[in-house]
């Protein structure tokens, strides 16, 4: 009997290690041989820790929210008694969450032990690499990728096949493959899940890219904030080398291909191609002027294929199943599937993979189960700090590279942060601008100074010092910066501002004209008031107010002078008995 316990970062944070320890302890106490394995993230994060029990006939029973107590029950009734515990099994809506998906990149995540290569090989792993090495020429491999229409999943959406072809055509014989695992988008974690849950799939994709383009060395650039992903990748590379799938003379073909891991050191801008290669070279991760492009002069000035984790995870499927099979999913110009990280104020948070072209309504309301706590849907932020927000009217739009660009957003790496009516859109724009300003590398003036000025203006607006003309100043700055900045980070820095102003201009107006935050979330715009009906005129608030903003006659309702009030809330605490003071 085999027990698989979901131990991605999120599973571990939900207590999966304790659950695993409990099973091990129970098995030992009964002297029972149990095959207890970790697995990656299946994506239903809100139901973690998740435990799969596979009996000897291969029947899988999936349990959710398994703590030590539940583990004991499952052990006694199912493992010893042979009867599944119905009450702890995955609920129907959890099943529906999985059934509504089409998985290519995440195919094995949550089903196999990522620390054991034989699990991956048992599910057809490294067969695509074998096919690429022995029954296809490099041109045929590239041709298949071109035909599949695979586009970069990291955000840009550049056709992968074309990129590979350009590298193959270079005269320089030394080429490199680089995998971008520097998933910096706040709100996206699909790359982490693949690296933690199915590392070999991505390594296989990289090896195929190497065979196709004639590269013999590859680098994976991973964020240092993902220690588990780094550990699993190191294990996977060591095992693949031992099994002859990587390293010298791969699969006996005579071709050498080795992969090294480089740890990022925390700089969002390193997601940009030329900054990433600069960082691998040990320099400050600052983008350079292009051309020459990365395919011509990338890492160590050699032709370089740079793709992200998810893109490489799709390669093996295309090679083994053929381009036509891959094209069955998604619209003509954006074929295949895409993983989305569904987070924010949504009922079912987690990682999903659906065909390109699926609508937002399907993702948020069907798979995601709608907005949390019965609140009203307001917007969804897609593509992180480079993307934009989509609203009610975009719910039925097809989610693919081109329709999103047309709607002024971008797919980015696929983070979907759902926001309910209590989220202030100006606050969100400020949040992203704060992020981008912080991450600006400082090389080009438009981004370095422009993001700074835009952040100052947004700070004014959310703290109640804004003026109406600042809205247009923001748009004007946004225009200039996107025209003149050096790299993608700067060019898209203003996207969240532009899209929130376009969709929610009235909220900006409320902030600067009425000095009011409609979502009641900007603390700078909150007002502290005394409710006249409840005030008994005891003067306690007046005595504690540090700035003398409260005045009145004893036994009559007191009033707060909003000009003097510093919103320290001391009066609210002082009036805890009558509760006559509120914050609006």
């Amino acid at each position, binding site marked *: 009997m085999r027990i698989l316990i979901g131990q991605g*970062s*999120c599973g*571990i*944070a*939900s207590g999966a290690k304790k659950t695993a320890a409990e099973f091990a302890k129970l098995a030992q106490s009964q002297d029972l041989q149990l095959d207890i394995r970790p697995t990656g993230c299946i994506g239903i*994060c*809100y139901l973690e820790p998740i435990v799969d029990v596979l009996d000897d006939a291969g029947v899988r029973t999936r349990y959710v929210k398994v703590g030590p107590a539940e583990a004991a029950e499952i052990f006694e009734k199912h493992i010893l008694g042979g009867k599944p515990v119905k009450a702890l099994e995955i609920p129907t809506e959890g099943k529906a969450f999985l059934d509504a998906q089409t998985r290519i990149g995440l195919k094995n995540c949550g089903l196999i032990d990522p620390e054991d290569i034989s699990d991956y090989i048992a599910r057809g792993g490294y067969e695509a690499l074998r096919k690429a090495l022995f029954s296809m020429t490099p041109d045929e491999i590239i041709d298949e990728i071109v035909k599949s229409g695979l586009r970069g999943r990291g955000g840009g959406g550049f056709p992968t096949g074309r990129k590979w072809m350009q590298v193959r055509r270079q005269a320089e014989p030394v080429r490199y493959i680089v995998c971008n695992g520097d*998933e*910096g*988008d*706040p*709100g*996206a*974690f699909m790359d*982490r899940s693949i690296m933690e849950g199915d590392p070999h799939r991505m390594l296989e994709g990289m090896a195929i890219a190497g065979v196709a383009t004639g590269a013999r060395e590859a680098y994976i650039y991973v*964020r*240092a*904030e*993902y*220690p588990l992903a780094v550990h699993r990748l190191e294990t996977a590379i060591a095992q693949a080398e031992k099994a002859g799938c990587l390293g010298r003379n791969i699969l006996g073909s005579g071709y050498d291909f080795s992969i090294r891991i*480089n*740890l*990022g*050191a*925390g*700089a*969002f801008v390193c997601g940009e191609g030329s900054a990433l290669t600069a*960082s*691998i*070279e*040990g*320099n*400050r*991760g*600052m983008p350079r002027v292009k051309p020459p492009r990365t395919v011509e002069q990338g890492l*160590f000035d050699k032709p370089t294929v740079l793709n992200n984790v998810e893109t490489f995870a799709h390669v093996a499927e295309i090679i083994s199943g053929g381009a036509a099979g891959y094209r069955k999913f998604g619209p003509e110009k954006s074929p295949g599937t895409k993983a989305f*990280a*569904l*987070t*924010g*104020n949504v009922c079912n*948070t*987690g*990682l999903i993979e659906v065909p390109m072209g699926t609508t937002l309504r399907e993702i948020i309301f069907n798979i995601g189960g709608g907005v949390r706590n019965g609140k009203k849907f307001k917007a969804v*932020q897609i593509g*992180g700090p480079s993307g934009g927000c989509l609203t009610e009217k975009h719910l039925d739009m097809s989610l693919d590279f081109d329709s999103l660009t047309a709607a002024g957003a971008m797919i980015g790496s696929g*983070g979907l*942060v759902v*926001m309910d009516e209590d*989220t202030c859109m100006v606050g*969100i724009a400020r*949040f*992203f601008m704060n*992020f981008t300003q912080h*991450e600006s*590398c400082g090389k080009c003036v438009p981004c370095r100074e422009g993001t700074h000025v835009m952040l100052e203006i947004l700070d004014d607006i959310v703290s109640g010092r804004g003026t109406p003309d600042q809205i247009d100043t923001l748009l004007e700055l946004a225009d200039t910066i996107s025209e003149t900045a050096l790299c993608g980070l700067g060019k898209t820095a203003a996207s969240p501002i532009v899209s929130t102003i376009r969709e929610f201009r009235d909220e900006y107006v409320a902030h600067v004209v009425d000095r009011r935050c409609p979502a009641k979330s900007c603390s700078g715009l909150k007002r502290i008031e005394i409710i006249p009906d409840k005030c008994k005129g005891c003067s306690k608030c007046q005595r504690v107010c540090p700035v003398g903003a409260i005045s009145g006659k004893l036994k009559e309702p007191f009033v707060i002078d909003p000009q003097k009030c510093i919103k320290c809330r001391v009066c609210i605490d002082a009036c805890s008995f009558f509760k006559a003071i509120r914050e609006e």
Partner: protein
Amino acid sequence: MQPSVNPGDCACGCTKPSDFSELDLILAEYKTVPGSLITILQKTQSLYGYLSREAIAHIAHATGITQAKIYGVATFYTQFRLKPIGKNLIMLCQGTACHVSGSKAIEEAITKEIGISDGETTPDGLFTLNNVACLGCCSLAPVMMIQSEGTDETYGKLTKDSVKEILQSIRDRDRDREVKQ
């Protein structure tokens, strides 16, 4: 490249060779590999907790990379610290999902509990608080990771109360250890 350094000869001012004996092992492994400055700095930091002036001078001396360039790299990336940190490093996630789920209130709760804000260390050297970019556990937002003695523990679905409990339990744990020692 410099051969092994005699006591008193090193430009970093160290007086005995053992000052950086562990760092020397790292340098021996990486100083000839092109482009490994970031790796060297990462390993140095995990060894000493931060990048001291002396360590940077020593790396410069051993690798031939100028101190100016090392400082350029070290100050560019958020991971590197030029000052020592507390025993427990609190990394509070400031990603989008955490922001929407109220990470600001969590930060306030931490500040209230241990009296430090972003980038500061408590006077007793027990905690350092750092606001970090997304930790990638968005479905558990708000999230923090606490690094202590080489282990990383992630805490999810934080509330003002749970943060207080977590910090208290770490404080108790460390105090117990001290008593035992």
